[in-house]
């Protein structure tokens, strides 16, 4: 099973308040640390578990720049056989469709049975996986929470839908799946692991390697552009109780009673 996982390097936002920069046109990036998009990491782990059972290789690829190599290396330290950087100035400013077009061209350079992405990137639109599938004319499923390899080039997958329910599907290979967090427990990768793959070359694919002409991608080809970051004007919001804890508790009890709460 030849698996391609499309990954993305994103800012780590869990503990750190995202703030606007002074110019008001981007978030303040100076203090940010970057790492692999969480859902993509789950996807790589899933790929590794599949090939551990079914044989094959795992390739991780990202559309970006030199800085993005670090996430490729991290996933290679995790066990991915190959890391590929897809980079070209012409790609800058691509919208989701542009990225999908680039990835489509890359997929055509190889033979992949299964393509995985994370459901959504921190700064993304939950779109690239579905778009790539449509460009390739491969079947697609999003929000995948389990994968079982069947015979006859088929997979049995479950999708996470509302109400905590699971939608079970059968899907033909080759296909594209977008992976939801929590599908597995990713293995740990530390500094040592990354050092051990420090010397492994990561090839870069440029626009000409992929046969992508201008106009299809990049800013010129983008139909969707983010124009700014801003702080929304907040509405009235909640009535914040200002008293001491005791007073607040009394008020809450009043409200509970009034709204028909206490038994």
């Amino acid at each position, binding site marked *: 099973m030849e698996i391609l996982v499309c990954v993305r390097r994103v800012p*780590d936002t*869990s*503990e*750190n308040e995202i703030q606007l920069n002074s110019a008001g046109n981007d978030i303040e990036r100076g*203090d940010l*640390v970057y*790492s692999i998009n969480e859902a993509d990491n789950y996807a790589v782990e899933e790929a590794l578990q599949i090939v551990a059972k079914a044989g094959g290789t795992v390739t991780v690829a990202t559309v970006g720049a030199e800085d993005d190599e670090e996430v490729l290396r991290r996933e290679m330290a*995790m066990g991915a056989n190959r890391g590929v950087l897809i980079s070209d100035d012409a790609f800058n400013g691509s919208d989701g469709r542009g990225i999908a077009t680039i990835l489509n061209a890359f997929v055509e350079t190889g033979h992949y049975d299964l393509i995985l992405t994370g459901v959504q990137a921190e700064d993304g639109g939950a779109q690239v996986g579905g778009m790539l599938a449509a460009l390739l004319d491969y079947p697609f499923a999003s929000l995948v929470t389990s994968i079982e390899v069947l015979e006859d080039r088929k997979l049995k997958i479950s999708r996470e839908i509302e109400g905590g329910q699971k939608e079970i599907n059968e899907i033909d290979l080759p296909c594209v799946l977008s992976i939801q967090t929590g599908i597995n*427990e*990713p*293995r*740990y*990768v*530390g*500094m*040592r*692991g990354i*050092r*051990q793959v420090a010397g492994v070359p990561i090839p870069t694919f440029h626009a000409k390697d992929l046969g992508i002409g201008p106009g299809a991608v990049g800013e010129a080809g983008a139909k969707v552009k983010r124009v700014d970051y801003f702080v929304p004007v907040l509405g009235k919001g909640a009535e914040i109780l200002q008293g001491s804890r005791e007073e607040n508790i009394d008020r809450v009890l009043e409200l509970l009673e009034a709204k028909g709460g206490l038994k």
Partner: protein
Amino acid sequence: MEGMESVAQVTSSLASSLATGRILFLLIHLLGIVCFAYIVAKRLVPLLRAKPDLRFDHPWLRLGRVLQFWLGQWRQPRYKLAGTLHIFIFAGFILLAIRAFSVLLVGVSENFVMPGLAGKAGPIYDVITDYAATIVFLCMVIAVIRRVVFKPARYAVPAKFGKAHTADAVFLLSLIAILMLADSLFAAARAAAPAQAGYPVEALAAFSLPWMLKNALLSASLSTLGRLYFGAYLLHELTFYFLLCYRPFGIQFHVETSLFNIYFAKLDREILKPVRWGISDEHLDQVKSFGVKTFEDFTWKHMLDFYSCADCGRCSDNCPANAAGRPLSPRFLTIKARDYSFQHYPIFGPGKNGTALVGNKDSGSIYTEDEIWSCTTCGACEQECPLLVEYIDKIVDLRRGMIDDGNVPQSLQKPLKALESRGNPYGKMEKKRADWVNAKQFQQACPVKILDKTNGAGTLYFVDSITSYDDRMQSIGRATARILDHVGESFGILGAAERDSGHEVRRFGEETLFLALRDHNVEAIRASGAHRIVTADPHAYNALKHDYKDVPAVEHISQVIAREVSAGKIKFNPVANDSSVYTYHDPCYLGRHNQIYDEPRDVLDAIPGLKRVEMARSRDRSFCCGGGGLMLFYEPKEDQRMGVKRVQMAAEAGANVMVTACPFCMVNIEDAIKVAGLEGKMTAIDLAELVDQQIARDCPDLKARSIAAQASEVKECVALSAK
């Protein structure tokens, strides 16, 4: 006097009865020795395949420790009854050793007498050993009764670890008793013989076992005595060699290995085993595999530890994780490894190389992951073990192996990643590390310098992560700063340049990340120009003292306070609340690991009106609060929190205020007070906070404002801790 034989004739008649067996005895000697040698050689095989361990330095120091711990049985009295029994048994063995050899050799060399015992020393030695044999025999009886009737809890074997060890223990104890009996019978028969010729019997130590047997044999005929003499000898020889060859198959192997185990024991308990002995930190990339994954990854000394365990259960009896119901039991960590080595390196048959030690039981693994992650490295097990078996190094090595394989619980992956990217396990921004000094009233009263190349000070206050970022623990930081300020110390902190000390990172097996944190900190410390480090965090203290190289000497704040108190620079106001009863909880990394027990107590005792009680488990028997650093993130499977047990111990001691000197202890204890339902009945306070609260400060107006500020802050934190 016709018909009466002389004493010499009687004795020689016994001797000749013995002589009939000389060939047999010789054969048994040879067989026994050869078997024993073969068995020991086989037992050494895995040690030859093990990883290196550098233990051949400081021979005199090591010999001194042999005298203290082996000959002196230093650790035994920690359990009074079992300890006393064992001291008697051990002393008996040592004393009887020469006698045993004499007896064995008499069988093949008729008139053998041990050199040095020919003259007056001989009978004196005989008296001593008569009593020794008696005492050993009695101890065996008591030991068997203890095992079978009283069944001390620490000998019990939980079902998941297999069957009880009682049968084997009783078997061995009985064999030793038989050995004593045989030896005594042998002496008794010879001593009784002259009676047959009408001569006074050989004097034996009065009321000793041989003496009693001799009296029982007074009326036996010479030929009977001869047979008994022969039989006792044979029994003695067979039992002796059987024991000799059987011991390496079980816990009694410690009889042979204990001396070596103690000789080769770690000299400096606080230096953690490096990833590979002989490979320095800079060359670690050469090591293909980190940690212990298979049995052969252990060092030869670790394997010797497995052989030397006497199954006494004292380690597990004191292990807080075990008491909390976590899957860890140090005793069985060792016993399982020993059994594994016996199984994979049998006496007969080829040795089989390792399966993974940690993993699934069905695939042959002996340890589960939770078992290995459960350890808080408190060191209670190592403190207790009479044979100086080492545990922390093994746990750390097993963790290194799991980390190397990427086998880490998700709950630990997040803080590890945060430590890597932000230098603290909370993932908070580096630049906010020193925000705690900006608390308004505090900053006015006690501005704290941030040190760097251009801005230096003599003393560096190393704050570490939890005190820097945790809302509650920041008050410990402020209290410590105020104390240093009060005694006129010129100090500062590293601020955003400080990273986590990495103490738990190392002990959780992430050596590479630890080295990165350490190297960064060492550089920052050097840049600060400080020639002294103070910290209020015992984990940081331990790291700076033992894990870090080339940094200035480090002190814990309790040591600083104690010194300033005896120098008169710190005076205390009396305690406000009459009904408070204080008890001091020894943090593991201040107390047991670094032997700082007295300074915090001296400080507390210097506060007028402070009533202090001692918990049953204190000093080096202190009970771990639950662990610090990364352990706060791990989600253990346990029956009850360690902290809850500790808080209950404090209540049992009659205390209603627990004083501790470690921010992690504070987290665990305050939490435990809530979980135990003791809110309102028990509070916790840090030593620095208490000192800061009680310091008598001179009151010019300037300071009055700062006192009000301090008082309100301390009130806030005491209120927090009272909830």
